[in-house]
């Protein structure tokens, strides 16, 4: 089934080229199984929106592609789009591996995603306002109160705090995967400080350089206006009576692995990139220290976690934050994007209630489904999960980055026993989901073109209106068979095209 003949035979425009063209060997390692393949259907027919890409590949020699891969990697290195490997005192900087071949979505597929994401984020903002004020959804028993109050990211300090325009989450990065039938489902909501948008933009720039010809054959929707959209979204948070707001990006500093992105976004928006030590609070007003003295700050796009934001309110050992920031925020003198305490809504156990949350506030059916999720503090779910650890994925609710995760089918007996003990010790801290076959996209590997599992993280902006820049970060599990797309665990990324149909 995976022989080169069958892989190309059913790609109509290529039929004749197959036998005499040596590059068709390119696809000799391609294989299909039950997972949804973005490029071919189950009968090895190329999906229509991938045909032009395949044709381009068949007239390009592997050497040329390899050359382009080198050029792309070099472009990332000279631009300094790198992350520092923690715990390496040589200061080694690595690039986030980049796959040459774009992932292509049709306009129709995108429309559904866009509507579904807007619906989801609207409900999330209503939910956050509710739980930090009257708590209607809790008293009506739709979401169990102890689930919310036991969440590590719930912030008592936010009780009754009036958040400007009730926008808690201005910037979200929602992780979606595609199931075997091609349907997109939400795997995870990232509602605190989602990262990766700079890679989305950088990937596009690099792809333009290495495949200039392809862009003339496809009508790809542009994404370059993300910076302007982000700025417009942050402007909507301007506190009342501040006409010309000063907006800043707050970074933990160069030591942070996402520092490149923080600087990148500040540049794109044309606003200062500040660190905690540049800011101070006096009389509940936030100032930054400039060459012209102190200057008032109105909106902070903070890329610092809640815990480190204000040593007086949260972790006292934090050097990354600003003493007194929480009070200034509560006094309404400064806006934060995202608000403090939004992590409740992306807790992996609260996630299971998102469809109910959408119905509760919007009286609508969710456009995007969730992945089936077992809550381990529920006794019947728990006993089912403990009996099926070898086939399920278990995740710690407060973790991200692919850490704290057990992938049943790939686990050892010892790992399963460790998770069993941890689940029994603190069931609230774990959830379980079926092991899903994420969709696969064609990637340019050592041996030729091969499919690898991918996900999709679009970036949603919530201001006076909801904006989702058409595209997102497609992350790739570059290790064969791997389902983990995180950069810390052998993941890479590729450009994501949304076509204007």
């Amino acid at each position, binding site marked *: 089934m995976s022989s080169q003949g069958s892989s190309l035979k059913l790609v109509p425009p290529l039929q004749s080229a197959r036998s005499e063209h040596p590059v068709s060997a390119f696809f000799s390692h391609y294989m299909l199984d039950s997972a949804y393949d973005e490029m071919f259907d189950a009968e090895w027919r190329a999906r229509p929106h991938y045909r032009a890409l395949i044709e381009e590949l068949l007239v390009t020699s592997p050497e040329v592609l390899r050359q382009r891969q080198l050029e792309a990697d070099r472009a990332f290195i000279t631009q*300094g789009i790198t992350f520092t490997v923690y715990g390496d005192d040589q200061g080694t900087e690595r690039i986030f591996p980049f796959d040459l071949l774009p992932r292509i979505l049709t306009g129709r597929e995108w429309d559904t995603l866009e509507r579904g994401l807007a619906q989801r984020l609207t409900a999330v903002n209503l939910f956050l306002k509710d739980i930090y004020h009257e708590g209607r959804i809790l008293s009506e028993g739709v979401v169990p109160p102890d689930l919310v109050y036991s969440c590590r990211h719930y912030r008592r300090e936010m009780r009754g705090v009036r958040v400007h325009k009730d926008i808690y989450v201005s910037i979200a990065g929602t992780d979606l995967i595609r199931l075997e039938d091609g349907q997109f489902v939400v795997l995870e909501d990232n509602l605190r400080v989602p990262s990766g948008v700079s890679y989305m933009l950088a990937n596009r720039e690099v792809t333009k350089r290495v495949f200039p010809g392809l862009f003339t054959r496809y009508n790809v929707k542009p994404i370059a206006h993300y910076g302007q959209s982000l700025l417009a979204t942050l402007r909507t948070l301007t506190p009342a009576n501040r006409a010309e707001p000063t907006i800043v990006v707050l970074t933990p500093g160069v030591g942070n692995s996402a520092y490149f992105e923080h*600087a990148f976004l*500040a540049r794109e928006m044309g606003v200062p990139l500040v660190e905690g030590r540049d800011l101070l609070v006096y009389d509940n007003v936030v100032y930054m*220290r*400039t060459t012209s003295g102190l200057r008032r700050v109105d909106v902070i796009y903070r890329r610092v976690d809640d815990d480190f934001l204000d040593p007086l309110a949260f972790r006292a050992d934090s050097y990354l934050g600003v003493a007194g920031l929480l009070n200034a925020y509560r006094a309404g003198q400064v806006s934060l994007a995202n608000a403090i305490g939004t992590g409740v809504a992306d807790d992996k156990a609260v996630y299971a209630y998102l469809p109910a949350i959408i119905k509760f506030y919007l009286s609508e059916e969710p456009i995007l489904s969730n992945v089936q999720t077992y809550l381990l503090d529920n006794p019947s779910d728990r006993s089912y999960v403990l009996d099926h650890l070898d086939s399920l994925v278990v995740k710690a609710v407060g973790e991200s980055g692919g850490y704290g995760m057990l992938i049943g089918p790939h686990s050892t007996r010892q790992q399963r026993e460790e998770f069993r003990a941890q689940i029994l010790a603190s069931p609230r801290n774990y959830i379980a989901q079926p092991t899903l076959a994420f969709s696969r996209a064609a990637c340019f590997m050592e041996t030729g073109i091969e499919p690898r599992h991918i996900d999709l993280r679009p970036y949603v902006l919530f201001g006076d209106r909801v904006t989702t820049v058409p595209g997102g970060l497609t992350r790739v599990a570059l290790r064969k068979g791997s389902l983990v797309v995180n950069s810390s665990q052998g993941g890479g990324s590729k450009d994501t095209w949304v076509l204007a149909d």
Partner: protein
Amino acid sequence: MLLSRVADSLYWISRYLERAEHSARLVAVAVDQGLGRAPFAGSAVERLYQSIGLESGSQDLSALAGGALFDLTNRNSVVSGVTAARENARQVREEISTPMWEQLNALFLRTKQMREEGSWGARIHHVSRTIIDGVRLFKGITNGTMSHGEGWQYLQVGHYLERSSATASLLTLFVPEGTGSMNMPEPRDQVEWVTLLESCSALEAYCRYYTADVRAGRVTEFLLLNPEFPRSVRFSAVQLEGALRQLARYSTRTGGRAERLAGRLRASLEYAQVDEILNDDPQAYLTNISRQCSQIHSAVHQSYVSYSIESALPA
């Protein structure tokens, strides 16, 4: 309006790069002198290394060049300068242009690569040339792609302050201690003064000005007081004062002290006469210039970067 931290980093980017370029050139000149086996060249070479904090002692030339180029523990080495400049640039990535960043990053990667290859011993000239060209390219890109606004002026301040003090401290090692006439150099001296000129990229410019007749007094005059040569202390002081005056225009804070100190330095050089300096105590004169440079540095820092919050709070 600039963040104080950003202003500080911009200032240090150009200081560090100027220092790296200076050290790279000294190494090239020192190696040339060693290779040419000019008589009595040893002591001039020794002084060049001394000026960047390396004591020659019993080390061979190649080890010294290695220290000046690639020793990360030597703050004046090329690799330290380039690394520190790039680290500062990384912290103000949003203030400098993308081409500037890409050039500085490329220079950093190239320097690091040459250091790791380790086989530079046989081609020190090539290494030093690569670095000097890299820094010059960065300056050209800076002038062509960054708005000549407040941030750019901080780059100028760092640049010319480093240059004034580097030229002054190099001269300090060549002029005699105490008083005395230097008008008639011995042949051995002549080689040294040529070396000094070369290490400031000044030999050609000097010859066009005074002919190839190299004399101690003229060299001192050229490197210290020439109004047109871009590495003379006077030229640098004029530029420095100009940049500080521009900076004061951007800020509502008073930068008066830095501007006044720079103006005094510039004026004292403009009205100085080389005979007077040489007949008096040239070493003391140059040491005094270095001291004034560090006073200006502190004044800039206090006015714009590390001012007390109380002095800046709204009334």
